[in-house]
């Protein structure tokens, strides 16, 4: 345990140093993550006003609350390892990761956590300013705020594990871009970024419920905004745990095969 504590501590310290080094590009990256929900917020608010104040029970200030929380949740749960893996394999960097007596997922996880920690310095004030401008409205409950924390951590964990597993596809195809694009398109629709899932047609909502995407982003957002009943909240958390277990098992199964594939093809 002390080994892992030291490993994560060191990795996070170094990653934060890199973040500071790359602060300009991090700021641009972050801007992208805030601008996207902002656009949807403006579009949906306009739609609500055109329809006499609400769409599907959401008024402009409800959309403001939804998209501001979503911007934070989406940033905190996001990952980029699917792009990173492609680079690693093409540049021959993966070999160095495999020479180390430690699973490469540790470094990636630490790096991700470090990036998130560093980014909050800018993200939270930015969202605060936007909150002043857009006047969000939400029903906050102590219990849902308390459950939001584990829901957010689990959302991150589910998303991280699935994206890391999917990134391993780069050992089987050199055209990983196509896989990534398909994944992000589905994630975009079914995680609640285009619209709150409650506004989607029934069949799409059922699809979202059957897949893990809602649990990666939308569920914690719904939870904190008081859109989820208490039993549904507990069910959501349980589902997150189930998907995390399934994703981890999938990853554990896939990793030795990916390694075997890598080591027979060469890097």
């Amino acid at each position: 345990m002390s080994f892992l504590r030291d490993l994560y501590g060191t990795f996070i310290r170094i990653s934060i140093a890199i973040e500071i080094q790359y602060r300009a590009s991090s700021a641009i990256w972050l801007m992208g993550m805030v601008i996207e929900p902002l656009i949807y917020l403006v579009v949906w608010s306009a739609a609500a006003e055109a329809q006499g104040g609400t769409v599907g029970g959401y008024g402009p200030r409800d959309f403001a609350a939804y998209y501001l929380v979503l911007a934070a949740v989406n940033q905190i749960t996001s990952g980029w390892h699917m792009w990173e893996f492609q680079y690693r394999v093409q540049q021959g960097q993966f070999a160095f990761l495999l020479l180390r007596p430690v699973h490469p997922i540790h470094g990636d996880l630490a790096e991700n956590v470090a990036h998130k920690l560093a980014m909050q310095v800018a993200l939270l004030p930015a969202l605060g300013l936007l909150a002043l401008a857009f006047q969000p409205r939400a029903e906050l409950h102590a219990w849902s705020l308390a459950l939001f924390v584990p829901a957010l951590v689990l959302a991150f964990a589910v998303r991280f594990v699935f994206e890391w597993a999917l990134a391993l596809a780069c050992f089987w195809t050199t055209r990983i871009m196509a896989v990534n694009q398909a994944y992000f398109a589905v994630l975009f629709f079914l995680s609640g970024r285009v619209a709150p899932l409650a506004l989607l047609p029934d069949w799409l909502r059922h699809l979202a419920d059957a897949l893990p995407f809602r649990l990666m982003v939308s569920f914690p957002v719904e939870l904190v905004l008081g859109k989820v009943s208490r039993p549904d909240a507990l069910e959501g958390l349980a589902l997150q745990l189930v998907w995390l277990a399934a994703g981890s098992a999938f990853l554990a199964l896939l990793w030795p095969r990916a390694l075997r594939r890598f080591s027979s093809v060469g890097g």
Partner: protein
Amino acid sequence: MSAAPAISVEGLAKTYVVPVREAGMRAALRSLFRRESRRVTAVDAIQFAVEPGEIVGFLGPNGAGKTTTLKMLSGLLHPTSGGARVLGFVPWEREHAFLRQITLVMGQRNQLVWDIPVADSMERNRAIYRIDAPRFRRVLGELVELLELGPLLERPVRNLSLGERMKCELAVALLHEPQVLFLDEPTIGVDVTMQRRIREFVAAYNRRTGATVLLTSHYMADVEALCRRVIVIHHGRLLFDGLLSALVASFASHKTVSVELGGPAPDLSSYGEVVSRAGERAVLRVPKADTPKVTARLLADLPVVDLVVEDPPIEEVIERVFAGEPAP
């Protein structure tokens, strides 16, 4: 009784499956339905052993299979057939206890983090290899002294010259005091002074720690300075395994005879192939067997001031080996 070899390789082979397609639209369309591939044998059933503490030069032209072999021995590649043991481990099982005792340095790639000081990359490897603080300080101190890294540690990697980066690369790769070093062209692209420094460092490291070193290089100066023994592979096959001096002796068909005369050098082509002639000096290439006869004739016939008989440069010998010319 001798200890077990640090590296032993038996019938090790690696075949890659490479997709092939002819140029042009028709071939592209055809490949939509039927993918064709070709098997390329990179390493073809090679066999050798390296004793603990040895520095062995692993030579061969580009594409000979050197890097593939090093990757198999460091656990990055699975062989197609055959076996190998490094420090008693099967490398491609990639046990952590094995990975902690080896290192692979690839001259053309680097593992240092580009935008942060070298010291941070050192710190990262400290955590990865579970090096405790006193040992970390001791090893780092030694490496800093041997490689003269002092002023480099605090600089971001991107501000280092290629040679400086290579020194840091070596230091980071050796921080965990590996017992087996796989060095794949560690001096590629750096200037001659830095090449010499790196060579001296590898020799000193080997003396100090008794580590086993398997080294590939296209610079014969590296090989001559570091390796008594060389293994030559070509097209994946083992061509030679033995002392460097034996390689030269068996593959050098000629000797170089340099003469300095009391006056302008006349036409010496009746003595041997004239490599150069300028003023009073001439250099001849003479078949090895004829050398005693030719030197005796030169001394008898001409006003010789100085005469030197040498083996041809090692590059020339290696070229002959790579060209597949049989030993005379």
